[in-house]
């Protein structure tokens, strides 16, 4: 990076542009598709210039899907609402459980501590299908099938290990002396945890929360098996667009745009917290 000849600068510009186009193209194309009818989308060759229509969004929001075979009821808005509720609740629960656990793993040595932490991480390695069959049997037994709580619980398999391991690293980076100093100033360990450790690990907690929110949001298999129509998130709900009379590309595109928007906004909002305060200069480096 230190030597940049004119040719190198041009090459870097071209390379960056190519990469940007490569990654942004699908998103832009989906965005354009969401304003087109199925006929316009399937036209060959595709056109960049077209007459935009809001029919796709109307169909989604009104829940009426008009196809060649007749009218279909879809519950996209319900699915979107489910996604928000399930992901938020799952992340909230995972933060409540995971942050204190991460602190314990970071600060205290206890028997089997490493093994427990690794076991929790290994939940991330296991393919979801591996646990789904026994899980669905248990859920039927426990009456947790098709409940919000049941899905939030199973989402802990996604969110909890992530939060635990990311936040643990942040806690380990905080000098224990800072907490010792706070305790010597006359505060209990609980106060040292809530007023020193958690604020200082804030960026890490935000990052872990955001990541696990996105992973929960994108999850498909758990909700597909464990929830029925009225509890399903958008990822499963999108299956409704594959109808007997063909695939509704326009509606799918509009649904994707709508379902990506919340996570995108959240990511943009949380971005500054991820960067801010990572190097606080508390301790002499």
């Amino acid at each position: 990076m230190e030597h940049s000849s004119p040719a190198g600068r041009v090459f870097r510009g071209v390379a960056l542009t190519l990469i940007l186009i490569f990654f942004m193209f699908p998103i832009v194309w989906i965005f354009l598709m969401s304003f087109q009818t199925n006929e316009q989308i399937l036209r060959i060759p595709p056109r960049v210039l077209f007459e935009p229509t809001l029919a796709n969004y109307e169909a989604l929001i009104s829940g009426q899907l008009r196809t060649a075979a007749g009218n279909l009821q879809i519950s996209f808005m319900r699915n979107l609402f489910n996604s928000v509720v399930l992901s938020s609740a799952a992340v909230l629960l995972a933060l409540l459980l995971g942050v204190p656990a991460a602190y314990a793993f970071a600060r205290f040595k206890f028997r089997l501590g490493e093994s427990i932490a690794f076991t929790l991480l290994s939940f991330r390695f296991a393919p979801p299908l591996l646990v789904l069959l026994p899980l669905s049997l248990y859920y039927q037994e426990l009456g947790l099938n098709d409940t919000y709580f049941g899905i939030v619980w199973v989402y802990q398999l996604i969110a909890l290990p992530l939060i635990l391991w990311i936040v643990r690293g942040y806690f380990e980076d905080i000098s224990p002396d800072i907490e010792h100093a706070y305790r010597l100033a006359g505060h209990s360990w609980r106060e040292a945890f809530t007023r020193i450790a958690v604020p200082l690990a804030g960026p890490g907690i935000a990052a872990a929360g955001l990541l696990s929110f996105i992973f929960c949001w994108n999850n498909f298999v758990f909700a597909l098996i464990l929830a029925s129509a009225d509890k399903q998130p958008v990822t499963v709900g999108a299956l409704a667009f594959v109808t007997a009379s063909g695939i509704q590309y326009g509606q799918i595109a509009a649904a994707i745009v709508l379902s990506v928007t919340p996570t995108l906004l959240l990511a943009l909002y949380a971005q500054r917290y991820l960067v801010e305060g990572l190097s606080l200069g508390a301790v002499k480096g």
Partner: protein
Amino acid sequence: MARLDINSVSKAFGAARPADGLSLAVEPGEIVAVFGPSGSGKTVLLRMIAGMFEPDDGDILIGGRSVVGAPPERRGIGMAFQNFALFPHMTARDNIASGLRASGNEVASRVAAISKLLKIEHVLSHAPRELSNGQKQRTALARALIGNPDVLLLDDPLRNVDAKLRYEMRLELPNLLRRGTAAVLYVTQDYREAMAIADRIAVLIDGRLAQVATPADIYAQPASVAIARLFGDPTINLAEVSPVAEHGVLSATVAGARMRLGAADGAAPAGACWLGVRPEDIAVSSASTDDAIPARILAITPMHEKAVLLLRLADGTEWLAALPPDVPHSAADDNVFVRFASDAAMLFDRATGLRIGPTHRLKAA
């Protein structure tokens, strides 16, 4: 007003024993420096007093009450850390005030008083990352001092500040610390700092207290050769000798020359000893006498307030001499003769390293 008593405290981490039967008492208002090479257990001792570790054995009492097992926040201890350990998300003011549970007005006035004393009033609204190392260190000191703790623990607080500030703080700290009635334990790796600040120095070597005495006593009468080597710059010169007593006079052969070591008394040492002579007690001249060691100057290091000569004695031993800078008219490769006064000689048992004999240095450092 509470004294700190450490009663035969031991702590082991696996095979390492950073504290091995430590006993020490610090009176209210007294400053005791805990001095020792790195890894000798200084910080472990402080952390046991502060309650970050519990001792395996022994007891720690503050004001006569055992604090072993008590949580750190109930021990009445103020502590300044080597790495400052300021709370990065709070301003300097909130850092200092963090230990006070009092009404807003009282907090404000006490923070104002202590920050005026430490000359940090102008940076109170700054976050720690905006402070210089010196200001961080003063903020950490203010935080430790503000609660008027019974016991004040300072863990090498001047380690991370620049040389000029360290010098200033060495002058200021004793006055600052004596304002209160806290029993102060001051950990340092710098013998000069220990001598400048402390009423007494506790020399910690390998988890044991090798000597606890006033700075002057430790310099003049080190209990062992190991302690003698820790105090003084340049370090003390040593020679292997076997002293003999003749006609009531103790003497030893150093590099072929017979040197008088003072009057022999009943406890005259027998057998192998270390002879120790401080570099500043050595005189160098070009005139030969029978009580001078022939030597050759290998190098001269001018150090402004003194000149340090590296000498090779006739038997190959290398000694250092610290002379006033204007005295030596000598140059490297000159052949010279080395003398020292008999009362400057210290004898240590070669096997145990302990100091023997009546040869007391009267002159303090």
